[in-house]
């Protein structure tokens, strides 16, 4: 971890000193334990604040579009690099304006799992590639890193950046996961009524702050459908119909585009497992379109952005 941080700083300083980029987009240590913040380094001095550890759960690709005319270096592990590929493929940013500092990733910590493993109020977290030491008032426990990483990271099969200009460490071994959507199978078995009940329950605490949307690098519409007001498309209350309209329509819009970066779940102030519905369309795309996974290369054609005359069209009667 420390080596990755040092290397990121070194590359960032060099790029800024040589004026190859206008800014470096990465992470800095946060003001509270288990939380880092997105960071924008404009000078070599500022680059000293860049960090890499298990709390870099924000997705820096989410901040690229406002800087599309700048030369930006971005710190990107597997999922973030895929989002960068997505933004390039969808013509939101230009490859030539970007310098991708690739980070082979070991997964981000789950604050919930860390809290559950902790005997008290956490005062400090120390981690290396294998272990996490959780310190509380007066005591500390050591846990295997693997046991404390987020669900999406345990299911991740693309830890290494798919597109980069420079890597900060040796690539890591990709996880071999026979069925990475196993967690969906229980829900898929439910009857439509039971499934509706399940989904209602997932979102029952939603306060419609839209943090999931706003933290998501593929949710970049200048005007989201829930914000349309002339005419208004979606009710504004916390009535479950409107709450679910928001989440379900958003989930459909992420089909074949979501990289499972987990930024939505990390941003949610209510601890909602947003991925329990965004994973399903992603799985469907993978199953129905020859194993397609979002944004693994600049060349792959995204199935939902492609039209073929010989596509099966049984729905046209």
């Amino acid at each position, binding site marked *: 971890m420390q080596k990755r941080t040092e290397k990121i700083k070194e590359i960032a300083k060099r790029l800024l000193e040589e004026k190859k980029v206008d800014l470096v987009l990465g992470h800095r240590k946060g003001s509270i334990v288990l939380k880092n*913040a997105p960071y924008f380094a404009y000078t070599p001095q500022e680059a000293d604040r860049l960090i890499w550890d298990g709390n870099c759960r924000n997705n820096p690709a989410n901040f690229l579009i406002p800087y599309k005319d700048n030369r930006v270096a971005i710190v990107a592990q597997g999922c973030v690099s895929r989002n960068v590929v997505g933004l390039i493929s969808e013509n939101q940013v230009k490859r030539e304006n970007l310098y991708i500092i690739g980070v082979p990733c070991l997964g981000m910590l789950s604050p919930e799992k860390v809290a559950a493993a902790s005997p008290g109020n956490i005062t400090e977290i120390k981690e290396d590639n294998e272990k996490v030491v959780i310190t509380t008032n007066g005591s500390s426990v050591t846990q295997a890193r693997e046991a404390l990483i987020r669900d999406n990271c345990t299911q991740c099969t693309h830890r290494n950046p798919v597109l980069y200009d420079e890597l900060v460490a040796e690539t890591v071994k990709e996880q071999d996961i026979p069925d990475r959507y196993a967690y969906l199978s229980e829900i898929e078995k439910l009857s439509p009524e039971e499934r509706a009940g399940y989904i209602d329950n997932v979102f029952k605490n939603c306060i419609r702050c839209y943090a999931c949307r706003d933290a998501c690098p593929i949710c970049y519409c200048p005007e989201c459908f829930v914000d349309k007001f002339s005419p208004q498309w979606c009710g504004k*209350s*916390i009535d479950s119909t409107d709450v679910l309209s928001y989440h379900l329509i958003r989930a459909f819009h992420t089909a074949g585009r979501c990289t499972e970066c987990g930024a939505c779940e990390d941003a949610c102030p209510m601890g909602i497992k947003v991925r329990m519905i965004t994973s399903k369309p992603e799985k469907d795309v993978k199953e129905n379109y020859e194993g397609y996974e979002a944004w693994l290369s600049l060349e792959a054609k995204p199935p939902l952005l492609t039209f073929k005359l010989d596509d099966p069209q049984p729905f046209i009667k």
Partner: protein
Amino acid sequence: MKYNILNKTKVDQFLEEVGKKCAVWGPKKDADQVAFDSIKDAKEMHLDGYMNTSMSPKNLFFPQSETMLYFNKSGEDANIYREVEKKPAAKAVFGIRPCDGAAFALLDKIFKNDQYTDTYWFEKRDAATLIGLGCNNPCSTCFCTSVNSHPFDEKGLDVLASDLGDRYLLKILTDKGAKLLDGVTSLDDAKDADISGQEALSKKASDSITARLSQDRIKEKSVLELYNADCWSRIQESCLNCGTCTFVCPTCHCFDIQDELFRDGGVRIRNWDSCMSWLFTIHATGHNPRPSRKERVRQRFMHKFKYIPVKRDGDIGCVGCGRCVNLCPVNIDIREVVQEMNASK
């Protein structure tokens, strides 16, 4: 000032007695969320390890979505908006933290002025008796002592309970509080040692809060100087403009009124709104006076630390509960922002 002792072995009996007068509410834990809810049995209350509710308790009096008017499309009064009948049941709420009590006291002033009283707030507020619970162990993100409040602040509460280990010291603060406790037999008399014990706890708690937010220069500077300060361009960089900070905040009180139509009628409802959204200020013409992230981020902090203090004689629009510090997805820490405002050129 009248004090009582509630022995922890008598909490069941106490709740039963109070429950005969009105509904009893307290902090309840559901999965990971702690929220105020009605309590039938003392065991339902989440007091062991209770720090505070995940969301602020403002929804007790200011629900996120609230129906104000309704109409039917048929019948005698077809297509005429009628007021929703407002008769909230009396309730006693146990365990309100002093920061949130202070927030209620501020909102009482905001929801009432010389021209208008927000009946939607006060009908529920007046029907509730609040038994606050002092904070023996403030969280690491608490900064109430920097914003005119305190771990044992009494503002906005009717009774303040202090946890003395095996018993609570109850300090009656208002007539409403006295009425609630009047004739309750499960209470004992307080001794001088209980009161001095509470004072020591209160001092220890406030000393344990290390955050010290200087605001001297915020006070000195004019609104425009702060508005045009250089700090905002960096503070706003990482803001997602989501509504988390405003929705979890005990003092954020903006709402948006919407008409919703159904097959047989319709309702007029008010929903929490958030100054973080571009939609909050968009005009019908398409012009938006807060067109970018910067204006929206600036608004929230200026409102709390400059506009409210200027307008309300030094009151601060923040009570230091620390919820936004904990829950902001990108770690925009209001304590750091205030320091940057104070130091800004």
